[in-house]
């Protein structure tokens, strides 16, 4: 983790892209800031040079709108939503692979962040944590003996054929993961 945090200019562009990439619920539920924060977490895990390219690309995307005729000399983050969606589309089906890859990357980061929001998962009925707890408990109830037997087998001596247990072999006792 790099401790990365968005610069204000980066955050402004990402804020403006959330309504373009995400379903309307992102704005309706007031999730824009949370989604952009989540994008920051993901960007923090990316390799430095990749993250640097992305930041530079976002800046270029923002300023590129100045010379996009329908934008009327406004940067991307100041375009009205419908116009912002059209501008994003010009990158998504862009003139060069670089335009396209950048737009794809941005779309992926924002879509990931949107569907990682707990409130969105709850609305979808996607509750994996509940399921995990339920089956974890059932497993322990039904199969405790087998689980214990295998755990014991993991620390029982079982030398390879023809290899005598070595006198230097030491053993430890504390815990497994």
């Amino acid at each position, binding site marked *: 983790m790099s401790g990365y945090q968005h610069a204000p200019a980066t955050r402004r562009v990402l804020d403006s892209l959330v309504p373009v990439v995400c379903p309307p619920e992102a704005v309706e539920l007031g999730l824009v800031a949370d989604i952009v924060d989540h994008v920051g977490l993901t960007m923090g895990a990316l390799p430095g040079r990749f993250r640097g390219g992305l930041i530079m690309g976002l800046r270029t995307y923002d300023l590129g709108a100045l010379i996009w005729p329908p934008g009327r000399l406004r940067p991307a983050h100041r375009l009205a939503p419908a116009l912002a969606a059209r501008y994003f589309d010009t990158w998504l089906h862009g003139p060069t692979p670089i335009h396209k890859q950048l737009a794809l990357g941005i779309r992926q980061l924002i879509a990931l962040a949107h569907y*990682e929001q707990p409130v969105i998962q709850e609305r*979808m009925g996607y509750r994996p944590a509940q399921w995990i707890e339920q089956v974890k408990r059932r497993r322990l109830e039904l199969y405790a003996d*087998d689980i214990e037997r295998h755990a014991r087998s*993991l620390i029982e001596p079982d*030398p390879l054929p*023809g290899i005598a*247990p070595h006198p*230097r072999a030491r053993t430890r006792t504390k815990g497994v*993961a």
Partner: protein
Amino acid sequence: MVANARPALRQDSRPDGVYTRDDHHGDSVLDADVVIVGSGAGGAALAAELAEGGLDVVVLEEGRYWSTRDFTANASQMIRQMYRDGGATMALGSPPVLYQEGRAVGGSTVVNGGMSWRTPEKILDRWWREAGLDGIRAADMEPYFERVERRIHVRTQDPESIGRDNQLLKIGADAKGWKVIPNLRNQVHCPGSNNCAFGCPTGAKQSALVSYVPRALHFGARLYSDVRVERITRSGKRATGVVGHVVRADGGRGHRLTVRAKLVVSACGAIHSPALLDRSGFRSPSGMVGKNLSLHPNVKLVAIFDEDVRGWEGVHQAYQVREFQDEGLLFAAVNIPPSIIAMTTSHTGRELGELMADYDKMVIAGMLCEDTNTGAVRTVAGQPQAFYQLSDFDADKLKRGCALLAEMMFEAGAKRIMLPFALGDHAGELRGPDDVRRIFADPVPKSSMEVVTVHMMGTARMGSDRTRAVTDGFGLVHDVDRLMVCDASLFPTPIGVNPMETIQALATRAAHHVLENPRRFS
């Protein structure tokens, strides 16, 4: 400098013998019989066998030590914590191939699907015949496979753990009359939490973290997490140890760690092992270090049904469709969290919302393709960069596989299918079985294919001929003394099935060789 530093353990959940970044208070020098770089399928299995054989083993792992209770369904957090570079690693080519590597104690076994298959006999025969490897045929490998399967508890799933997505896959395959088999998985009564790719939260999946690593520790191995190895040290043609540094919490360089050892093992996977050899100045007379990269290109399609599937309730990949294995194609159902599905679709805005509203009706069907082309790993500024060009032949195979998979899912009752590539200028979407022919009628730009992989192989291939292979049949690097590779880099060819068990069996065999030849390594 502190010789043989054995830092005091903190009183926490770590087993004895695990040292993390918090345990380093200065530069350290360790001595050991064997130092192993990487704690995944190969490194952990080798460590356990050698430690039980009485050798003093040190394992170095770049990732952190996580325990079962750290694993949750928070997909993006798990990816950030346990996947190298947040999962955004890519082999450059057209299309680029996104690949994932685990970076944690236990390596990729912590985040894989838990499929445990022996190397197919025809592949072992090919390695014997073409790479001149003795003792590698099925009968020779049998005891090693058997031993690995005992250790990681390879079984089919308990029936109650199989979810609706996998049932539908089987229904489709049965309706087509295709061969479909229960998957063999390394698990102890896996209850189907379907969180394999983000760490098993029940402890059922027998990743190296909960099988070989505890065994290695029990027999005295020492494991240092949060340590990035920079290079292998050498004296002439002999490997003498490794030099690395502790990775600080912010990713920066911490204290220096040097390990002096009689045997040095690179077990950091098919992307990083060749880079480590290269950074350390080892040149193979074969010229094959980093070459011969194969990666089982994977694509997935999303089939949407009218019924509730709730793919997250039930085991990941309970079955494999083996009807087309001779063509190098395997099919399986692989549930993926909504955030990852949303990432990979071509939809935005309202359309994305409409598609994702059907998330609980989705079956994600994936395909593994045994590839015919090879790529390479090159070292750029000390870091590996993979290059891979999907061949036209393999692209056609992926198209054919998607067509077959789509037919099968429509047979099971799917109402529409999202393809992993565009059809002409439009997103690839099929509305019924009659649409399947569009896969062949419409142009499919290769560059539009969404190809991913978790099976990187072959970049330090083994073989008897030092002019064609990097290592011998036990992973010992030709023309270098006391340097071994122990991961999927060794594979002379792709194997067409999930590689974990092959890696572990080769590691077990290599350990047997070391222990049978103590003079050579003392």
